[in-house]
């Protein structure tokens, strides 16, 4: 049985695409046949983060409009087995995606035997974002420890609970996960940044993971390699933990405490 997993947030620039790339790669490395779909029509980015940009020939809009078959549009990842990318169109306008069209593509992917179908949502709470989450079975709500991001996450949770197919058909609700990204424990320590506890208290959604603010993310995107493949980095490890939890494993949260520094450390240790 395929699972449709949407990565969403409301606000832009919080780490949805970074997360979609990392989580889909992690699921594939765990042996799950996985496809990650870019829903950001007109502003595609996932292909770059996945490092497949030079192999894009067809996209999801071509498939929906019957100009290409699904297997022509799917790009197999070279480094990670079981992993496929379905890019967004760069040229077509947003209205090219339709509810029926997306539903058909998802049905065809199910028939192809995919275990996980990961949908990278565009920013906003309008049509594009609503289509990305409409058919979801599970949702990863990505949120930064920052006031506007938390508010938008709450609105997105409202939309998941009321406007999704599961809500409309009266089925069991979408399973929600909170993923906190760009977390800076030392700034939480000084009281400048909302803490994990603050965010959980406000949003009341089970926590899938905490990804620290990390240089490794920029380096990974420069190289076009999902950060989860960099096993020695903090962000890479935090994403690995999140994938393990998604697959039912229990793991303690890491990277949420500041390293304790003495007075001299406080003087010289930070910028």
């Amino acid at each position, binding site marked *: 049985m395929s699972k449709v997993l949407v990565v969403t947030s409301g606000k832009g620039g919080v780490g949805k695409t970074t997360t979609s790339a990392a989580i889909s790669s992690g699921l594939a490395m765990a042996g799950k046949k996985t496809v990650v779909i870019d829903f950001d029509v007109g502003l595609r980015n996932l292909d770059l983060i996945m490092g497949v940009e030079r192999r894009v020939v067809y996209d999801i809009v071509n498939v929906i409009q019957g100009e290409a078959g699904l297997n022509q549009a799917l790009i197999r990842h070279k480094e990670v087995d079981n992993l496929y990318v379905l890019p967004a169109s760069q040229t077509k306008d947003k209205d090219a995606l339709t509810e029926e069209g997306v539903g058909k593509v998802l049905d065809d992917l199910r028939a192809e035997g995919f275990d996980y179908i990961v949908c990278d949502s565009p920013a906003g709470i309008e049509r594009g974002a609503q289509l990305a989450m409409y058919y979801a079975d599970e949702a990863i709500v990505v949120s930064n420890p920052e006031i506007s991001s*938390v*508010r938008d996450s709450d*609105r997105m*949770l409202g939309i998941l609970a009321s406007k999704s197919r599961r809500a409309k058909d009266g089925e069991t609700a979408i399973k929600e996960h909170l993923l906190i990204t760009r977390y800076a424990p030392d700034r939480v320590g000084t009281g*400048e940044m*909302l803490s994990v506890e603050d965010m959980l208290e406000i949003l009341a959604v089970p926590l899938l993971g905490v990804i620290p603010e990390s240089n490794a993310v920029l380096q990974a995107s420069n190289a076009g390699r999902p950060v989860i493949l960099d096993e020695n980095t903090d962000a890479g490890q935090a994403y690995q933990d999140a994938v393990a939890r998604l697959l039912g494993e229990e793991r303690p949260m890491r990277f949420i405490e500041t390293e304790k520094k003495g007075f001299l450390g*406080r003087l010289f240790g930070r910028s």
Partner: protein
Amino acid sequence: MGLLDIFRNRSQDPSAKMAKERLQILIAHERAQGQNRAPHYLPEMQKEILEVIRKYVHVEDDAVKFEVEHNEQFELFELNITLPEKGEAGDRPD
């Protein structure tokens, strides 16, 4: 970071606390308005409940307060009605 900042950081009213308080108020309000996690049928249900109440007592719109609270385990729907004081022309409107 300079020496002064280190000491200032300790005495500062942490701005994250302010952010949290503002968020809690804002989000409670948005949820109550049915903008956020409230179920889509909420506005309709509120209207009907109000109609039922008005069959028995006359209440103003602002005497009725709806709130939805979420929690990991359950959703709480809270309805507060301020009834008119005795003797006021608040009895059943025939």
